[in-house]
């Protein structure tokens, strides 16, 4: 039976009285019990398609042509009342980011109960149903979790609570919007495995919206590749991955990082270290509400060495202490004990003013390119700000340097006067890198620099980082949860878990013959088995 039947669908967004097309001439079907993955970059129309199916287009979204029949009901031009009857009971949604997907001021159980009540269940039967769905979604200790508020749950548990909400409406189809983008790979793997099992058990269809071809290949019966609002090609995963017809699909496949270490430094001499952390420990005071416990031990005798001119990666799940390590290495956080030596200078125990000269040697690139640039600063102002701050050069020489830096990150110099809102995510990250380069540092700390970017853009940024390292002799401390990305850029790696370094060594060694179970689990969680096997 065909559950979703989309024919010649055009969807556009009205802006300034003009309709900008987001989806054009789309034909798509989803059969009962089928798992379909819609793959595409941001702006490809994949989320718009999903929103059209569930009748949740934003107020300025319009279906301008074609039809989208869901469970026998035409949704194009349908009234809010008609669409509402589809939502929840026919189509369930698992939103993108579990951290913000739940109402923060309502208990989790209450939010699931709402969905249960919409099916006409009342009274004493409701709490029992709530617990049943929490259990189904794989939430341990459901009685406790139902009474808690979202902030008392970890990201993984919140994702499971959202799955429970989607299941509670007993839908025929569940749409999972970018289920891999916000959580750790290991957590996501467990949750997606669980969800996949559930939908197959109960005969629910599943539509996965993702930018990650690897995720799609692992889980879908059929992959639909979209670009610029159009369907590029579709087929079963094996065909899409191993024998794609379209060049765009081929590029996507090629850009998917696979766990093939790029650099092998096993037999090479180790250069002098530029940064050495020795037995660094960090204890946070007990007033952290989310962690609750007093005296939270964030780091336990962590030792990390970044060799000059090389890339050292810190990997691990969120909460393992990798960001804290990075912040201590930058001097933004003080270590409780241990030593941090940057280019021969001890930085632990230095005051802000004593630390300032050292900041020229080490710079930072953040994870989120959308939050890292001051929205009121032009690109030129952002790039020259470090120079102004250290009173280097005059107005003209700074402009000159800004042009040179844009050139280095492969952006046209005409971008100097642009504002961040006019740039794409990848372009913003290039600007952030240019800003980090402005003071000619020896070391750049990269905090998940590509995890917010699409696969193709991600590949370009990683290439840029590698090129810059070769040209300028930079050293990188690269923090990431994604081992496939690390394999692309890093020479050496430290695997962290629960505030400890559990394994370290050359990437080529650690990734091919991991000794620690934590490392093995991280490697197993990487999506894209089918891509790798097909290649």
């Amino acid at each position, binding site marked *: 039976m065909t559950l979703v039947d989309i024919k010649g669908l055009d969807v556009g967004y009205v802006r300034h009285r003009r309709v900008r097309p987001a989806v054009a001439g789309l034909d798509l079907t989803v059969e009962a019990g089928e798992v379909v993955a819609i793959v595409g970059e941001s702006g490809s129309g994949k989320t718009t398609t999903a929103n059209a199916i569930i009748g949740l287009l934003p107020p300025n979204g319009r279906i301008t042509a074609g039809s989208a029949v869901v469970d026998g009901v035409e949704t194009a031009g349908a009234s809010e009342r008609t669409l509402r009857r589809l939502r929840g009971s026919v189509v369930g*949604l698992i939103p993108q980011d579990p951290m913000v997907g739940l109402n*923060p001021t309502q208990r989790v159980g209450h939010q699931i109960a709402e969905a249960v009540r919409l099916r006409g269940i009342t009274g004493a039967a409701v709490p029992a149903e709530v617990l049943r769905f929490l259990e189904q979604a794989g939430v341990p200790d459901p009685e406790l979790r139902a009474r808690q508020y979202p902030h008392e749950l970890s990201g*993984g548990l919140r994702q499971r609570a959202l799955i429970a909400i989607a299941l509670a409406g007993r839908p025929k189809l569940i749409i999972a919007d970018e289920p891999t983008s916000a959580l750790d790979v290991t957590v996501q793997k467990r949750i997606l495995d669980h969800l996949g099992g559930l939908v197959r058990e109960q005969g629910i269809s599943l539509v996965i919206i993702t930018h990650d071809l690897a995720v799609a290949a692992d889980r879908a019966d059929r992959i639909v590749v979209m670009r610029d609002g159009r369907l590029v090609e579709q087929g079963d995963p094996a065909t899409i991955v191993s024998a794609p017809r379209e060049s765009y699909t081929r590029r996507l496949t090629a850009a998917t990082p696979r766990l093939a270490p790029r650099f092998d430094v096993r037999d090479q001499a180790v250069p002098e270290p530029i940064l050495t952390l020795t037995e660094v420990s960090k204890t946070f005071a007990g007033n952290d509400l989310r962690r609750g416990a007093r005296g939270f031990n964030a780091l336990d005798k962590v030792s990390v060495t970044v060799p000059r001119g090389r890339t050292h990666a810190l990997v691990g799940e969120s909460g393992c202490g990798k960001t804290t390590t990075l912040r201590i290495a930058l001097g933004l956080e003080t270590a409780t004990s241990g030593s941090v030596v940057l280019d021969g200078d001890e930085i632990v125990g230095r005051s802000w003013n004593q630390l300032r000269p050292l900041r020229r040697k080490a710079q930072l690139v953040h994870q989120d390119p959308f939050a890292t640039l001051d929205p009121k600063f032009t690109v030129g102002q952002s790039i020259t700000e470090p120079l102004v701050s250290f009173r280097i050069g005059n107005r003209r020489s700074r402009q000159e340097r800004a042009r040179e830096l844009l050139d280095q990150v492969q952006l046209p110099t005409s971008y100097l006067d642009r504002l961040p809102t006019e740039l794409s995510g990848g372009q913003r990250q290039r600007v952030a890198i240019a800003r980090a380069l402005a003071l000619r540092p020896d070391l750049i700390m990269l905090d998940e620099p590509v995890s917010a970017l699409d696969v193709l853009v991600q590949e370009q940024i990683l290439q840029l980082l590698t090129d810059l390292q070769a040209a300028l002799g930079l050293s990188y401390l690269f923090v990431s949860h994604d081992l496939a990305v690390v394999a692309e850029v890093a020479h050496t790696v430290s695997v962290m878990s629960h505030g400890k370094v559990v394994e370290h060594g050359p990437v080529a060694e650690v990734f091919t013959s991991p000794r620690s179970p934590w490392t093995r689990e991280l490697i197993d969680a990487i999506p894209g088995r089918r891509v790798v096997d097909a290649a």
Partner: protein
Amino acid sequence: MARYVAGRVVQAVVVLWAAFTLTFAILYLLPSDPMELQLAAAGVQPDSLTPDQLAAMKHRFGLDQSMWAQYWQHLTGVLHGDFGTSLSQQVPVSDLITERIDGTLLLSVTAAVLSLIAGSALAYLATFARWNPLRVFLTRLPALGASFPQFFVALFLIQFFSFQLGWFPATGTEGARSLVMPVVTISVLASSVLAQVLVKSFDETLRQPYIATARAKGLSRSAVHLRHAFRNAALPAMTILGVLVGLTVTSSIVVETVFTREGVGKLAQEAVLSQDVPVVLAVVTVAAAMFVLVNLIVDLLYPLLDPRISHTRGRVRPAPEVVTST
């Protein structure tokens, strides 16, 4: 929780003390001699008194002491409920205040409650309306309300509802009907300010992903708006509740003057004109106390409305996903 409450209470006391001290310092530094003002009020020419007589009088009112001594005297007095003696009326200031505070409290509290209801309702409707022209109109309305000066609103109401329609008395303190127009005057401004903040907060909240989650469940628009958006939107707006109550207190000065109502606002206005320092000091202290009290209540209400504040303490911490090593 106890620490949170204690901290807020201490903070409130410090703010109150600072307000008192600052007011005292400003009034003390005024370039006028309170003794002369008092004599003028009593119809006595200062020149007709001998220096000895003057000194004796100054001594009687404690005006010959150092600034610190006077400050200390006032502070301890206030702590005992003694605000000194009015210079112009020669009666204890506390009597003046207690006589009039009922009227002003009634006015302020009624206006605050009305503003709260009207402001919330307006913001709710403005963000719930689906017909675009109505939505735009309702969204812009608060800006209009906030931009009319209060005396203008008051005069307009008097002209229309008293002189033309004769529904409400233009002046006076007697009866509930005399309260209507002053309350409306204050509420126009206060509810507009609240609605402006709330509309913005609503718009922000409605864009949150959990609203999409709620809609995807199949909830109706009104259920989403009321159960999921309202409470979350109200949280950031709560901070201005203190400001709002402060606004109704300051507004009472204008409103009581225009409508010639007996109250603390009018007393303050008269005291400033006659430079009656103890009265001004007392009025400011009482107003500050009200302001601080409301802010304290808001602070203490926060944890009840927002579970994220001091709720986790002593409870189960978020469990990390269990990692099973194989």
